[in-house]
């Protein structure tokens, strides 16, 4: 049995869905951020798959850019989380950031 590109795309789609479900299901902000990382990785997997299928290096360049944006997102997101926990003390969940004004 030969592994086709579609298999990788299916794994990417499932990974994206699991990440999206985690963002909606979990209440811990740190875990929500990890689920966003899952979704970004699913996108990266699809990019690499299409880069090979279409024999186009642009897909792999795009993965580089996604990696950098993900790193920036983690830095800012974790800084926001630290700031929230400093205000609300322990046990802060996503509900504590339901207002933009805090």
């Amino acid at each position, binding site marked *: *049995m*030969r*592994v086709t590109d579609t*298999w*990788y795309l*299916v794994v990417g789609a*499932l*990974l*994206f*869905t*699991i*990440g*999206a*479900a*985690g963002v*909606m*299901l979990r209440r*811990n902000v*740190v*875990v929500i*951020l*990890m*689920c966003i*990382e*899952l979704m970004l*990785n699913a996108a*990266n*997997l699809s990019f*690499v798959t*299409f*880069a*090979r299928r*279409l*024999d*186009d*290096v*642009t897909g*792999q*360049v795009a*993965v*580089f*850019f996604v*990696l*950098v944006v993900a*790193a*920036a*997102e983690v*830095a*800012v997101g*974790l*800084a926001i989380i*630290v*700031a929230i*926990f400093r*205000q*609300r003390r*322990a*046990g802060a969940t996503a509900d504590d950031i339901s207002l933009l*004004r*805090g």
Partner: protein
Amino acid sequence: MVELALFAVAGVVTLGGAVGVVLSRNPVHAALHLVAVLVAVAVFFVVQDAPLLAAVQVIVYASAVVVLFLFVIMLLGVDRAETLEEPLRLQRPVALAVAVGLAIEVVLLGGHTWTTGASGRQGTLSGGDPAVLAENLFTRYLWPFEVLAVLLVVAVVGGVALARRSGERLGTDDVEGPGGAPAKEPGAGTATAGEAGT
């Protein structure tokens, strides 16, 4: 045959690890599951002619980003099991329904040629040679690359500005400004000073 075995192992680790991230009660366990997912995705990269991206994935993601996650978890002291109870009554079923709908949507969109059939510059991958990737990154995509450098600097500065304790050294601060909980803060005076500053 080798590719099939690699695909099976990496696929099981990827999806199992992803479910583990979502269902772990302890955030530390979720972070460790995330490492498994990231390494398995790196295996996918190796199989699919992207060795450089696999290395970057392991170095940047599986090490740096996850260590950052663990560092923040330990710093905040949330490294203990938490209840997975959901106070909102309809949140769970609605979230699962939306997730299933999203999966169907992804498959439908991905299966259509009007979203995936377009091809840019065919024949430029050359077997995943890192030199070709680097050449494209520094010639054709130099401008986005430089913009990303600016983005990283902005993100670092923003992270420092957000995480800095208010009024510690540099005077006014925007984190614990209006609407914060100054009463709970030990340094209530500095919080109100920040409020006055904004």
